[in-house]
């Protein structure tokens, strides 16, 4: 079976984007994206964990018994999260404090568990690593978009406090969109994240619709459905 790397990349970034299509990992997505810097750091952390866990699980996929695969996945993911947590504590301590509980909570991020179960446990190493990285980047892009949207609306700035992540160089990156902005608390609070994510999903649907129209105008290309099973908390898991 040859691996379609292009399809994995496109799925992760667009067609099966974890935040916009699978709607997984909503808890960190909604809670943390109040500013761009938070979004980027959580995105990077999630991507690293996702890639690492996919790699490890894919390497050991033949040895993991099906019956206890989920606890094993959780342990692998948890060890990566611990590494990231310690790393953040060492390198960006302030950011670590801001993100607080959401760093350890990456363990419970359904994107990571979902990809581990649906992809990494069934596919060779190279494909799994690519899938993890692309899913992570797709997730990060949405985090950043949402973070930018909420930061611009909520505090009237963009890229504030970037020095927490990129060092003193980034201190001048802050863009003040409106001087003397009173702040729009709704955008900072979780309800604003829900509305913002809803708008982003709507935007994606519009773009998809336009693309489809253009595609059907030209030669129709059939995109095959992924055969991976989705992680569900309700219903039967076959």
């Amino acid at each position: 079976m040859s691996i379609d790397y292009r399809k994995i990349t496109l799925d992760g970034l667009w067609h099966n984007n974890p935040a916009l299509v699978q709607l997984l990992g909503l808890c960190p997505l909604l809670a943390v994206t109040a500013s761009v810097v938070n979004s980027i750091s959580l995105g990077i952390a999630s991507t690293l964990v996702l890639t690492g866990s996919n790699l490890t699980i894919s390497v050991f996929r033949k040895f993991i018994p099906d019956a206890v695969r989920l606890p094993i996945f959780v342990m692998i993911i948890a060890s990566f999260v611990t590494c990231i947590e310690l790393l953040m504590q060492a390198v960006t301590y302030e950011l670590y404090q801001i993100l607080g509980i959401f760093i350890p909570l990456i363990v419970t991020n359904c994107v990571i568990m979902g990809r581990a179960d649906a992809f990494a446990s069934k596919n060779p190493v190279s494909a799994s690593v690519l899938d993890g990285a692309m899913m992570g980047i797709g997730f990060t892009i949405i985090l950043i978009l949402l973070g930018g949207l909420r930061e611009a609306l909520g505090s009237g700035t963009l890229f504030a406090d970037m020095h927490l992540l990129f060092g003193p160089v980034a201190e001048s990156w802050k863009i003040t969109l409106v001087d003397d902005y009173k702040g729009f608390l709704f955008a900072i609070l979780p309800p604003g994240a829900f509305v913002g994510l809803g708008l982003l999903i709507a935007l994606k649907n519009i773009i998809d619709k336009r693309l489809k129209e253009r595609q059907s105008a030209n030669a129709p290309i059939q995109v095959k459905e992924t055969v991976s099973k989705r992680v569900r908390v309700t219903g039967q898991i076959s």
Partner: protein
Amino acid sequence: MALIRITSPHVHKPASTADIMRLVILATLPGVLAMTFFFGWGTLINILWAAFLALAFEAACIKARKRPLYFYLKDNSAVLTAVLIALALPPFAPWWLTMVAVFVAIVIAKQLYGGIGQNPFNPAMIAYALVLISFPVEMTRWTAPFMLHGEGWNVLGFIDTLQLIFGGWSEHADAFTSATPLDEMRHRGGLTTEEAWRASDVLANVGAWHAVSAAYVMGGIFLLYKKIFSWHTPAAMLLSLGAIATFFYLIAPDSYADPFFHLTVGGTMLGAFFIATDPVSSATSNKGKIWFGIGIGSLIYIIRTWGNYPDAVAFSILLMNLAAPFIDQYTQPRTYGHKAPKRGIKEKA
């Protein structure tokens, strides 16, 4: 050949949505007048400004959704939403506050959900809750009922009010603001209710609030008489709020405000007659409406007394809007000739 046989009741003309909305707007008139009388020109200016914005946003959305423009604009629902928002906002709310509120109500809470009749929540209350959470400073800066004192209307004329709303806040204007009675009662420190009544200037002016509430009741009774809504929701809401307030007042009159206070200040009456009765977002059956009203009344008391916000009408109505489909599910009336429906856990056959 078919003979058309007409039987009673001989209804001449069904009320259209536009007629109903017009009547409801008309019924807010006493309330608008009372607000203007006590709190100055601000209310009127806000209503006009909000109505203009509502029509503009509505038109833009309908255009974007490629729906017939005139057909939807003439149903008056956008104007009614605007009037309700303007009545709920502080009379000196700055122009952008009204704009944000109307935008949220019309674009997000109404049109994004599919337009008139499709909104699960009351758009005016969504807007109110959103601006209340987002702009606490502006939203708690209620106007003092300065008409009661001395020079009255000359103190702050029409032009001055326009400047205040569109030109920006000046320190000079702080003289015309005060907390609301609910605010005062909520943040009375260690005082008992009786001491608060004696100590507070705001509570001394509570008559203005009573008058405004009475005006809303007049409008509500007019609508009831016109059969725009049934008595179930407002009655259940006011009775439950009154009953709970009486209960706690009898237990500890020092720590809890009296039931009359709860019924006649804040948004209680506006909510009971104009917002909880919204046919789209409330429960459907009469039994359901009673439960819906009881829910709102109890939540108002709970949030006002033990919550973070002094007034709670908007939050209570939104929460019960959320519960309305659930209430409908369990209060579906039995159709004639059918047995009572069996719901919940079914017995094994």
